């Protein structure tokens, strides 16, 4: 069985197409692996039953672990929240439907920060996910469950969502590949909304080729989502061998002291690898990127406060017992159904949108957003890609940052600017580093960002760099191909 689980999703697909691998046997092996979850990474597994509406008869693609933010008809969908406990959506999201139509079964639904708000997965109402490299550390978030199952050998690949880094950061902290595509590349129909001007679906995979294969299945416009436009062409599998003729920009402003020494070392080594592969490394300027966190923590909570108004105990989800009027029922339902971080963001967002504050906060943040997008456009006139560490640190300890919301938000320092600009960015594992406080080495992610809709070029460069780096470390006990 370990031999089957060591295959990448692409290798398994090719073997199934060639008739060398029985799809049923392969899917069963993954079902068994998923059943052994000790990371609290799954909230529902195919083996738990009730998968009728999304079951498929003849799988031909590796089964996918799906973040529990995607609606799946008849199958529990909680978004990591108590307020949606027991909710079984009456329809299936377009992203999942596309996977099913391509022949990829849903292996399970993965744990996540409540409504995708968080960078550590500690905000899930169903308990934190453990990092497969060190069970005392966080897997990152908000797609922590999706990252942990792929890194921990509990799923061949997964999908997640990224609003300010929620695919890339957990991918980095778990030592796998995570891709946030261009805003609008993939339909969001049936993907529970957090911040609508930022949310995007994307793959979490073992390698860049699997990310390309998954993106090819997911991407495309959808009449049910008027913000979806798809990519200019279906992505092909990357095959680039070197980086010659490509320029990689390192933002001078992001050379912050907040980066852990181990992370910085891996980043520098990776820049040297780029040059060895024939690429050029140049310094660029993103003068407004330092304001990304401020703008993001106005825009995202503001949009969340509006999107989450729908959870009122009337049409779906839980309703609190209350003896008062309908307003009291709303207030008590939301008080009992939402966790601390969600409440904090609803408060922050409602405040920022309230009368007298709108221009100073939301309006100003939207202008900062324009400046950040302009900074990237200027940089891309000079370089092909912008590169940064994905996260300023390796995986941190459970509970280490839960008492300081602002410290937690600063985790997103390197991933938020790309989200605000709507551009694609990928995190690939670049090496291992010792945490700042000492201890066994943990994975470090390297982020590459490209202009909007340049996914093909981005995947090509990421693939060539991945081959050059040759990262092949896995958590203990996980089959290695």
């Amino acid at each position, binding site marked *: 069985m370990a031999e089957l689980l060591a295959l990448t999703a692409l290798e398994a697909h090719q073997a199934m197409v060639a008739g060398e691998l029985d799809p049923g046997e392969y899917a069963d092996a993954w079902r068994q692996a998923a059943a052994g979850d000790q990371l609290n990474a799954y909230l529902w597994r195919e083996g738990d039953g009730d998968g009728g509406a999304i079951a498929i008869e003849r799988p031909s693609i590796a089964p996918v672990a799906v973040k529990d933010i995607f609606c799946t008809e008849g199958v529990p969908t909680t978004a990591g929240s108590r307020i949606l406990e027991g909710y079984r959506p009456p329809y299936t999201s377009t992203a999942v439907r596309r996977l099913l139509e391509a022949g990829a079964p849903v292996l399970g639904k993965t744990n996540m920060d409540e409504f995708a708000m968080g960078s550590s997965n500690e905000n899930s109402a169903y308990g934190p996910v453990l990092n497969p490299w060190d069970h005392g550390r966080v897997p990152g978030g908000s797609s922590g469950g999706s990252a942990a199952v792929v890194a921990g050998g509990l799923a061949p690949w997964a999908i997640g969502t990224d609003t300010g880094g929620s695919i890339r950061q957990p991918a980095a902290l778990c030592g796998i590949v995570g891709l946030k595509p261009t805003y609008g590349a993939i339909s969001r129909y049936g993907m529970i909304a957090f911040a609508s001007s930022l949310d995007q679906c994307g793959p979490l995979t073992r390698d860049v080729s699997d990310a390309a294969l998954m993106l090819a299945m997911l991407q495309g416009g959808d009449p049910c989502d008027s913000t979806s436009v798809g990519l200019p062409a279906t992505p092909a599998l990357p095959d680039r061998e070197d980086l010659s003729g490509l320029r990689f920009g390192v933002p001078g402003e992001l050379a912050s002291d907040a980066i852990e020494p181990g992370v910085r070392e891996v980043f520098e080594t990776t820049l040297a690898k780029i040059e060895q592969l024939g690429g050029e490394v140049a310094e660029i300027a993103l003068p407004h990127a330092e304001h990304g966190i401020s703008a993001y923590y106005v825009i995202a909570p503001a949009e969340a406060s509006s999107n989450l108004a729908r959870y009122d105990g009337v049409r779906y989800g839980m309703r609190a017992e209350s003896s008062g*009027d*309908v307003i009291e029922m709303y207030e008590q339902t939301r008080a009992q159904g939402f966790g601390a971080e969600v*409440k*904090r963001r609803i408060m922050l967002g409602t405040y920022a949108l309230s009368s007298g504050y709108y221009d100073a906060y939301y309006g100003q943040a939207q202008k900062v957003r324009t400046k950040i997008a302009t900074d990237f456009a200027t940089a891309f006139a000079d370089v092909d890609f912008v590169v940064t560490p994905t996260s300023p640190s390796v995986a941190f300890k459970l509970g280490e940052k839960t008492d300081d919301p602002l410290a937690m938000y600063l985790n997103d320092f390197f991933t938020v600017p790309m989200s605000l600009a*709507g551009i694609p960015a990928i995190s690939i594992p670049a090496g291992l580093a010792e945490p700042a406080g000492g201890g066994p080495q943990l994975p470090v992610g390297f982020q590459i960002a490209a202009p909007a809709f340049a996914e093909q070029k981005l995947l090509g460069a990421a693939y060539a760099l991945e081959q050059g780096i040759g990262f092949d470390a896995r958590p203990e006990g996980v089959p290695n191909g």
Partner: protein
Amino acid sequence: MIEREQVLHVAKLARLGLSEEEVSTMAGELSGILEHVDRIAALDLDEVEPTTHVVELENVLRADVPHQSLAPEVALAQAPDPVDDAFRVPSPQAEE
């Protein structure tokens, strides 16, 4: 600095019940976050257009064709308190 009264006002706008303890922690936490966020208030951006959509899109239109929607019983199936073809809620006028 966010005061207790502001927290209560915003919680009311958000229809969010908060415990006494939550009100006091929220005041401190929101103040800390807003202090960081306030750095953008000092930027001179008067001439800058706000971004409302990151990807340039023409207005998206579709044909106005009727289609099958969720059946009423399916739409009501997840409701905490459905009655006949409707969602039942407590009376808007509280009983004293």
